[in-house]
């Protein structure tokens, strides 16, 4: 019998195995076909670049991570607040909600150069782009969560003279938590994209800036090392949220406490 940890690793075994095989194939192909490092460096060279230039990578990683996390946090708080307004104010629900939804046809990344015109090349532009990109999924998911409580549940709470405040904190908020978390998981990946794009457009630091710079210098191993570091960071951020979700939303996990089978 395997424990939960054991099963987790067995399930991870296949994708990890396939990834390692792909990396090996890549390494062999580059060596056998004698492809130049500028075009496609072998994985070993990327790893070497990662360690040799770790200082350069890290000094550029922190500002990107910082903007990602701060922008994301602003979006989470702002998105939940707007979702509450949408839930409780019919004027906002009828007037602004459709506008928010329709405004999503604008490819938000395209606005990045405009932000540079308005707010310069500093952190402000990046932060605003992150918020712009992540705000929508946060708001929509939270609003859906707050509004999808069971009609009978709401009636029962009102029949028991429950106040709006009580209904919000005891019923709506916990009910919305899974929705909020799925919004957060979508938003965190979008936040990373937002930061990188804004750093592409105009920035003097950050991983996006480093990728562009290395591209200009035809330093492909450094580019790929930067992309790898960025991907690992993105995965870590996502993992942290998934972990928090797993612990907070205990009532939706598949393993039953006490081992009583679901029938």
């Amino acid at each position, binding site marked *: 019998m395997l424990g939960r940890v054991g099963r987790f690793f067995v399930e991870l075994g296949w994708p990890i195995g396939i990834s390692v095989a792909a990396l090996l194939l890549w390494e062999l192909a580059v060596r056998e076909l004698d492809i130049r490092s500028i075009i496609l460096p072998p994985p070993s060279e990327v790893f070497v670049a990662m360690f040799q230039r770790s200082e350069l990578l890290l000094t550029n990683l922190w500002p990107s991570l910082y903007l990602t996390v701060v922008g994301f946090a602003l979006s989470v708080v702002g998105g939940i607040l707007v979702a509450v307004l949408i839930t409780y104010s019919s004027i906002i629900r009828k007037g602004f909600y459709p506008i928010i939804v329709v405004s999503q046809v604008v490819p938000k990344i395209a606005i990045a150069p405009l932000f540079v015109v308005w707010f310069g090349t500093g952190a402000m532009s990046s932060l605003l782009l992150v918020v712009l990109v992540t705000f929508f999924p946060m708001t929509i998911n939270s609003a859906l969560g707050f509004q999808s409580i*069971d009609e*009978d*549940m709401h*009636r*029962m*709470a*009102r*029949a*028991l*003279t*429950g106040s709006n405040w*009580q209904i919000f904190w*005891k*019923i709506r908020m*916990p*009910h919305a938590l899974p929705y909020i978390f799925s919004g957060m998981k979508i938003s965190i990946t979008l936040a990373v994209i937002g930061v990188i794009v804004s750093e592409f457009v105009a920035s003097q630091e950050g991983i996006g800036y480093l990728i562009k710079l290395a591209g200009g210098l035809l330093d492909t191993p450094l580019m790929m090392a930067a992309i790898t570091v960025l991907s690992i960071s993105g995965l870590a951020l996502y993992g942290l949220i998934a972990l928090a979700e797993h612990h907070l*939303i*205990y*009532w*939706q996990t598949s393993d*039953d*406490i*006490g081992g*009583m089978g*679901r*029938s």
Partner: protein
Amino acid sequence: MRAEIFFTSSMSAESPDRKAASHILRIKDARKVYRDLEVIRNVSLNVAASEFVSILGPSGCGKTTLLMMVAGLVERTEGEISINGELVTGPRRQVGVVFQQPVLLPWRTVLDNVLLPIELLKLPRPKYRQRALDLLTMAKIGDFAHRLPRQLSGGMRQRVSICCALIHDPSILLMDEPFSALDAITRDEMGVELLRIWQANRKTVIFVTHSIREAAFLSDRVLVMGRRPATILDDVAIDLPRPRQISMMEDERFNQYVRRLRKLIEASHAR
């Protein structure tokens, strides 16, 4: 039977008017119109304390609307509804409601779900904890007090809902087709269980159903409702001995009641 655990405060409420006191619920000429649609027309009925009354009618005939009016959740267009001699103008704590689907919060344990009404009513939670456990024990789900709702079967969840409706010691229990989502066998069992719980604490029960057999089996009185606009077509007293057993459904007297109720319903369709 552990009847002593149930509060009786609401039952002993003295009213200056003796006649009003004998009827815990009085509905006089209640009418409900949604825009142009008349849903309920001239419904009048009186229910005595501790009485088990069923409202029997086809689906969508306005039974639920009438129940929600008694709960103070739906405003009436005309007429008067009073509980314990006081006019119903909004939600009030003398009422407990059980819906078709059990309404339980999945993140709360069974015990915490039963205590939710106490929190909403802003009553002291610790004082009601033992009562909640006693109620669960009486509903034969005491061992599941610390489980989450998803670990329970449908019938068990509906038992929890009934405990939720009883926790604050309401004088009237309103039940809106509470067993219609259950399978037929569980449904009969739940009927017997409900009667046992009812006999232990003697609440007034208004039970809405579209099942003729269920209405006849459970009730002291069955009110037959016709289609929209809903009115009460007949008031049938079910004079069968209590406590009632499932085996009673085989008896000729029981089946006479079932046939009579079915005829009344069919007659209302023919109109």
